[in-house]
């Protein structure tokens, strides 16, 4: 078990809307988000001594700018010791938070800025996006030649899960509806119109049993957060969002090598995180579960222990995960409704977790939220990552 419980906190968050902005340079999404995070915390920008940009997928040239310190220069940060990219695909934000915590706890860093920007919505065509995600993270020797891509990956997990549990298309659609209820209240979300089960179930079939409205879409966007020591955090803000526990489990690179495509490593990762925090799922006020597609939100929710296997669909269907529900889940609308921005899907979710715990979530604020679990995963659902955050240290 790590020694990081309660040692660091998120003190500032920033996020630009997720959408299609053909006339906006990608760097804007990074620096506007970072500026918001700095203003949100109320720190002097020159207190930042470490910058962690995560990767942008739409353009190697832009990503090289992130690697070569453009964010530092654009913001005029004068005391940055290291600008170092942290990238683990969809789990980048969670992996970066733990790395940041270790650096701060060891004394190697004191104020870390993590930032993401992406233009997958306007920087690539629709078919280009499909083609990009028929190779990115997919084995060029063992899977690409068979026509593998992310809709198919998702469909393969959904098919086996439904076969083993008896869950239905309606259960999968219920996740989309739940996430949309939250996105209706999220000004940074792309899809904000109400969505019905019937609309989801009537949408075009992509790869059986996965339908178009059960699939995320790619967009432009950006988000950022600031991490510092718990002591410094208490000097700066009223409600630091402490890291209380973290867990992870890397299970595969090649999707077809995953021994259980309808469970993955969530149970192990969740146990690790909850044990470190000294909390249980019953203590959580919010479950910020990584979606990208309904099946992964359902699997994460169940394997973390919010209910038994096969029961999540009914819980989503009954509205227990909706605004005002018993266990609010994925309160920014997730990638299904806020939109998918590459590594940014879980950056948005991490920022949303902090936002809710800080009490800054506006119309969709979960009342008196003290503890939340946040999950993230990269590649073809290769590494279950779990963080427990809270405004108190239990």
């Amino acid at each position, binding site marked *: 078990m790590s020694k990081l419980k309660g040692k660091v906190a998120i003190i500032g968050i920033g996020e630009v809307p997720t959408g299609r902005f053909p006339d906006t340079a990608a760097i804007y999404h990074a620096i506007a988000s970072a500026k918001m995070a700095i203003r949100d915390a109320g720190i002097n920008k020159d207190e930042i001594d470490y910058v962690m940009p995560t990767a942008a997928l739409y353009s190697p040239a832009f990503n090289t700018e992130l690697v070569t310190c453009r964010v530092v220069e654009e913001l005029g940060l004068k005391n940055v010791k290291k600008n170092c990219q942290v990238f683990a695909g969809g789990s980048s934000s969670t992996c970066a938070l733990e790395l940041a915590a270790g650096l701060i706890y060891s004394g190697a860093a004191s104020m870390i800025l993590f930032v993401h920007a992406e233009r997958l919505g306007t920087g690539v065509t629709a078919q280009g996006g499909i083609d990009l995600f028929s190779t990115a993270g997919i084995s060029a020797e063992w899977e690409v030649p*068979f026509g593998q891509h992310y809709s198919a990956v998702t469909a393969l997990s959904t098919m086996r899960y439904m076969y083993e549990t008896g869950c239905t298309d309606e259960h999968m659609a219920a996740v989309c509806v739940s996430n949309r209820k939250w996105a209706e209240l999220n000004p940074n979300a792309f899809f904000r119109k109400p969505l019905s089960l019937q609309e989801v179930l009537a949408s075009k079939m992509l790869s059986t049993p996965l339908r178009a409205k059960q699939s995320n879409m790619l967009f432009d966007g950006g988000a950022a957060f600031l991490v510092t020591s718990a002591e410094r955090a208490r000097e700066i803000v009223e409600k630091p969002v402490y890291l209380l526990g973290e867990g992870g489990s890397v299970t595969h690179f090649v999707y*077809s090598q995953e021994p259980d*495509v309808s469970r993955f490593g969530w149970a192990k990762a969740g146990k690790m995180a909850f044990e470190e925090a000294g909390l249980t799922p019953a203590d959580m006020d919010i479950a910020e579960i990584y979606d990208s597609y309904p099946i992964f939100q359902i699997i994460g929710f169940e394997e973390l222990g919010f209910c038994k296997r096969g029961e999540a669909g009914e819980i989503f269907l009954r509205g227990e995960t909706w605004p005002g529900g018993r266990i609010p889940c994925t309160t920014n609308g997730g990638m299904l409704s806020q939109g998918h921005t590459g590594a940014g899907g879980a950056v948005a979710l991490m920022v949303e977790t902090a936002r809710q715990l800080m009490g800054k979530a506006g119309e969709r604020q979960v009342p008196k939220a003290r503890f939340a679990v946040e999950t993230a995963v990269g590649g073809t659902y290769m590494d279950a990552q779990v963080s427990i955050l809270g405004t108190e240290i239990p």
Partner: protein
Amino acid sequence: MDAPKKPVPVVNPWAKPFWDAAREERFIIQQCKDCKKYIFYPRIACPHCFSDDVQWVPASGRATVYTYTVVESNAPSAFIPDMPYVIAVVRLEEGGVQMLTNIVGCKPEEVRCDMPVEVVFETLNDDFKLPKFRPAST
């Protein structure tokens, strides 16, 4: 617009015997001489016990469908003309071994989880035949 050419496997040197055999319609996998476990895809050392002593052995070609999907739209460019096509993860009779493949030789809607299947080789080009699976003959 014509679909781009099908992607060919980017072969790792230590996996070359697999593709050479496949071109001759022989289906081989690795087995660890020390712990006896079967290995796929090919590795430079046993992923179970980390022994360097791994050998190539013939595999039965018999498997079951662990999971599958019928790709009906939004396929990668090179596969658009193939739609609808079936992608599946199959579990080989040799225990603990899974691979991604296509199910052929039946209607896509006839595929089921846990259905028995057998290997069949499909020519990709002069250099490659891909191991695919069809419903088991018996």
